[in-house]
């Protein structure tokens, strides 16, 4: 038998599981453990990438059935282009992050045992691969929850900190509630697919071959969307995300933000396009609206953050929103039978999946390097790191530029394609959608611009200027494995930005599988240099020319200006004659975001307090000034707090049942009997 892609993928999963089992044996040799474990995960990830890429380029599906699980419901695995694509996304970033981890995890040596980190890291990766590979409801949910549980243990890794525990708890609860919703959704589908006389309905194949009544399908979709949205961090279910992602070890944050969230996207695509297949347009509208909401609110919240990793986490909310915009548009186009447009929209969505995985992974790795070097997450305490950490700074900058959707990097390509998809909405037959969808384009534009502001802040405050903190740690550049991990991700960002045509041509198998149409004929029509979705006349973009054009002009200008040797004089910064200028006077994260906070303040729960110390001769010359600012998510107060309150209220009420007196308990039985008898008569 020739091993095919799915054997490769399974092998990768098995390798990870074996690694997870064996790792505890090495717990006494921590250094060896790090090298072996993360080396092995890197190899396994590479294997997964190969399997995925192979499948996508072959464009067909392979299945195997493993004879474990329930005897009546063995585990079904399937590797089709959609799964293959996500396998590549997950595998690619896992590869980078695994390499990075070899350096990063060493930072924990001497402080705590990294055994559990290594074990759950392996399980986490295995879980993600399995989610993508699974082809029946049971194995899907098992993988889904293994992924959630493993990441939970990774979040709680540094468990002595209360914030980690709190975040992990919140994460776990939201994830589990979401998982139950997904479970119920599968329940609906399985029930409609084959009834409950047998276990057959649980396989995806049965669901694919069934046709669902609209009511049941809608229930299934809404449940699934709720569950997946909770996992993806779609506003308003996102609250766990900015808590959990920052406190996890940075390599894990990179994976969680970069690829774990994508499994939720995968789930939505799988359920709507592959399992249900026929759906009304307003499903897409729901996805679109939540996508827009997440995009705008996510970036605004990101702008308000002072914690570097928290900022990145909120930015993930934004990007998930952008992805859902693409998916939602694809759903709308599909339901109106516009396959070409749907293919375009879907491609934008999944291309952004890939892109976001790359740059968000890169950014989290960069933030991890900073954290590793400074032991600081608060940007207010940072600054000027570009001098001590030139590599990290440059790579982080690439990430920032990519995520801000600037050409010639990859973030721009997917955003550009999303705009193109938006601009195709006039082809829709529904007048209402025609009017409303362009508004979405405006919101997307707003998101992009705000993201740029956000990452100017992130990069500028962290790496530029002077050190803002009170005490100055000795900062060292990240070591080579970490750098290599980041360099690979940065290279991917650049390549995906300047060669989108190749990437999209390769990805065409996915829309081909799900919608039946591919972009291939139109997108790559003018060769690899030109990206022309739909038609040449509509729009075109050439990444290579933009990149090399700018590069050429910059180099030309530089050379021209350096023909005549000029000197550069280094002087202290100009202080306008003030003389007492110090580094605490720089703009910091809070002040940078101030104008935007003013403008969009109504969206946040802002508590700003200024207090002037009493011990002063005159009010105009205070000895001390105290300023405090709290920007909170309104969603917490609107959605989560009431739920928590209601639960405890319920708990108090229920607690009254158990009030201690035995007579009362006897009365319960007595009344129960009477009630039952009365009802039965």
């Amino acid at each position, binding site marked *: 038998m020739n091993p095919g892609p799915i054997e490769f993928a399974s092998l990768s999963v098995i390798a990870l599981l074996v690694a997870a089992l064996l790792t505890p044996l090495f717990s006494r040799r921590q250094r060896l453990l790090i090298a072996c474990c993360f080396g092995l995960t890197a190899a396994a990830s590479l294997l997964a990438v190969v399997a995925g890429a192979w499948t996508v380029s072959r464009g067909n599906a392979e299945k195997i059935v493993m004879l474990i699980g329930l005897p009546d419901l063995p585990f079904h695995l399937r590797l089709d282009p959609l799964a293959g694509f996500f396998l590549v996304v997950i595998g690619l970033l896992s590869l980078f992050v695994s390499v990075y981890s070899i350096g990063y995890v060493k930072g924990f040596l001497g402080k705590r045992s990294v055994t559990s980190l290594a074990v759950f890291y392996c399980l986490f990766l295995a879980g993600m691969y399995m989610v993508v590979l699974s082809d029946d409801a049971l194995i899907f949910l098992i993988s889904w929850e293994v992924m959630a549980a493993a990441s939970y243990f990774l979040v709680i890794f540094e468990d002595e900190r209360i914030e980690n525990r709190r975040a992990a708890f919140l994460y776990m609860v939201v994830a589990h509630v979401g998982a139950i919703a997904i479970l119920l959704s599968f329940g609906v589908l399985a029930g409609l697919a084959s009834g409950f006389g047998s276990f057959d309905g649980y396989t995806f194949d049965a669901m694919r071959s069934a046709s669902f009544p609209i009511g049941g399908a809608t229930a299934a979709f809404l449940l699934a969307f709720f569950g997946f949205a909770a996992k993806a961090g779609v506003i308003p279910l996102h609250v766990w995300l900015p808590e959990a992602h920052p406190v996890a070890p940075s390599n894990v944050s990179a994976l969680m933000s970069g690829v774990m969230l994508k499994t939720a996207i995968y789930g939505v695509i799988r359920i709507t396009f592959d399992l249900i297949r026929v759906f009304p347009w307003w499903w897409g509208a729901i996805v679109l609206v939540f996508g827009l909401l997440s995009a705008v609110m996510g970036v605004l919240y990101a702008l308000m953050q002072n914690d570097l990793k928290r900022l990145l986490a909120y930015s993930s909310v934004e990007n998930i929103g952008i992805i859902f915009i693409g998916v939602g548009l694809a759903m709308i186009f599909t339901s109106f039978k516009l396959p070409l447009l749907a293919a375009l929209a879907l491609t934008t969505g999944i291309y952004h999946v890939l892109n976001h995985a790359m740059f968000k992974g890169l950014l989290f790795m960069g933030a991890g390097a900073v954290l590793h070097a400074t032991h600081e997450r608060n940007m207010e305490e940072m600054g000027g790191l570009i001098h001590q950490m030139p590599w990290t700074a440059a790579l982080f900058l690439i990430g920032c530029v990519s995520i801000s959707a600037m050409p010639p990097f990859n973030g721009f390509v997917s955003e550009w394609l999303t705009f193109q998809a938006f601009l195709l909405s006039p082809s829709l037959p529904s007048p209402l959608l025609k009017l409303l969808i362009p508004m979405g384009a405006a919101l997307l534009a707003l998101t992009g611009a705000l993201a740029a502001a956000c990452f100017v802040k992130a990069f500028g405050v962290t790496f530029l200027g002077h050190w803002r903190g009170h005490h100055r740690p000795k900062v060292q550049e990240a070591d080579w494995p970490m750098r290599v991990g980041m360099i690979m991700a940065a290279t991917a960002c650049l390549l995906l930005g300047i060669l989108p045509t190749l990437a999209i041509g390769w990805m065409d198998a996915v829309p081909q599988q799900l919608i039946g149409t591919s972009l291939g004929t139109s997108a790559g029509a003018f060769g690899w240099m030109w990206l022309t979705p739909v038609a040449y006349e509509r729009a075109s973009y050439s990444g290579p020319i933009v990149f090399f054009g700018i590069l050429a002009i910059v180099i030309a200008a530089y050379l021209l200006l350096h023909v005549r040797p000029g000197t550069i004089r280094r002087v202290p910064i100009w202080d306008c004659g003030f003389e007492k200028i110090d580094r605490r006077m720089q703009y910091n994260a809070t002040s940078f975001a101030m104008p935007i906070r003013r403008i969009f303040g109504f969206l946040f729960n802002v508590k700003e307090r200024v207090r002037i110390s009493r011990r002063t001769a005159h009010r105009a010359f205070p000895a001390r000034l105290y300023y405090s600012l709290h920007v909170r998510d309104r969603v917490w107060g609107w959605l989560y707090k009431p739920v928590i309150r209601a639960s405890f209220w319920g708990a108090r009420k229920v*607690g009254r049942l158990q009030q201690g007196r035995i007579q009362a308990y006897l009365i319960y039985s007595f009344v129960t009997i009477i009630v039952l008898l009365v009802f039965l008569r």
Partner: protein
Amino acid sequence: MNLAVAAQIISFLAALVLLCAFGMLVQRRMYGLIHLFAWQGLFLSISTAVVGFVAGKHHLYISSLLTLSLKVFLLPYILHVLIQRLKIQKEVETVVNVPMTMLIGIALVIFSYHLTAPVREISTLVTRSVLAIALATVMIGLLMMITRRHAVTQIIGFLAMENGLFFAATSATYGMPLVVELGVALDVLIAAFIFGIFFFHIHTTFDSLDVEQMARLKEGD
């Protein structure tokens, strides 16, 4: 003895059993309770014997003897001894709202009658009308456990329920199979030992047998 007479006798005994149950419901004194319980057991035993005689079921004699020895002599004796040992013979329990309790008891009798109607219709036994009384006795035993707060009273209520069940078994079906009867008797016996031990434990721990004190285990605020 012809069937009609037997039925009358059994009905009469059933009435006495019910009366004892009501008596126990409102009896405040320990000894009074034990005596009432013993009387109830006696009526039960006689009734079982009569049924056995009428129906020609000889294993019912054994049941009758069991009841006699266990519920008329042994259990009252054990209770008696316990009360003396624990020096609580003088204790008088407050019973709240006697009329109300009685009313509920009567309501229970009516309810039981109503409930057992279908059984009565199906049954061909002479004892069929007694089933309502048996159920009522069970219910009143439960009611007694609810209204009283003394451990001994609760146990007596529990045993009264047991009587009611036994009565039900004889009246509805001329008694359960012998194995079951014996097993039930064994269980009651073990239970008797256990509550004996309990009385001591409770008394030494709480200094009284008032179960109101035992309300620590609850969902506090």
